[in-house]
């Protein structure tokens, strides 16, 4: 169970403890195909992927976005998360080692809640961002 930091203790520029994930495997993509209900064959069927001009299958964007969610909920309980969004900026291939990182970009109040804005992203082993996102959480 996650215990949230206090609003007063959080500073702009604070970094979350990064999450380094095991290399993306075909098995994980098959599990995510079933688990998410996204049955697009481009993520699990190499013949299909090649037919559409890709060298191999590649990860669902939403699998990586789930990693962003894991990072945020490792920092605050899920019930305090008010928003999560991302752009998918490059493809995540089988074998890629993804690091999920985040830092505080702002603090504000809205509708009586104290909110903290975060930049969150996924970066591959070559230092290239695959997801560039943001999150908003409410803190006490």
């Amino acid at each position, binding site marked *: 169970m996650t215990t949230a930091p206090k609003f007063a203790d959080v500073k702009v520029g604070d970094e979350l403890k990064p999450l380094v994930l095991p290399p993306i495997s075909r098995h994980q993509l098959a599990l995510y195909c079933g*688990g*998410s209900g996204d049955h697009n064959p481009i993520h699990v069927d190499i013949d299909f*992927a090649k037919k559409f001009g890709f060298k191999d299958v590649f990860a669902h964007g*939403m699998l990586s976005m*789930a990693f962003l969610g894991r990072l945020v909920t490792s920092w605050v309980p899920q019930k305090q998360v008010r*928003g999560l*969004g991302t752009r998918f900026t490059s493809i995540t291939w089988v074998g890629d080692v993804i690091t999920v990182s985040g830092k505080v970009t702002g603090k504000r109040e809205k509708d009586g809640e104290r909110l903290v804005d975060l930049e969150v992203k996924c970066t591959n082993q070559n230092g290239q961002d695959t997801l560039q996102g943001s999150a908003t959480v409410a803190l006490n």
Partner: protein
Amino acid sequence: MELDKKLIGHEFAPFTAAVEAGKIKLFCKAIGEEDPIYSDEVAAKAAGYRGITAPLTFLRALQADDPNKGGLLRLLNVDIGLILHGEQHFEYYAPVVVGDVVTCQEKVVDIYDKKGGALWFVVQEMEMKDQAGKLLAKGRGVTVVRNPDAGKK
């Protein structure tokens, strides 16, 4: 290939999705999530949730329960091999838990192209409400369509 901008404003038929523990369990296995609030009702309630909780991005998996799944692609007449996910955003109003029956309503809010029509972008918005009509979440997604005719003269 050119997408029909007249489809901006198209509303899909609403559908309901039951939030089930087994689906969340498989989803969590796939994403490597091990927090017991996603698998154990006692732990979830102890942590202040109404029940076993759906992970933040599981909401997109609920959309897969649409009986008209693939409706966007049929509407646009686009092959599934040509699409990529461009963006996804969620606003959360209340946690979604096992036992909830969620009503989802999606609509197309924008269609535009870049790079001289080589890439098309379809923006959709989604609202999810619980069985009592209470707003749970809003979503905004961007689907990118690769034009198979790009570069051909």
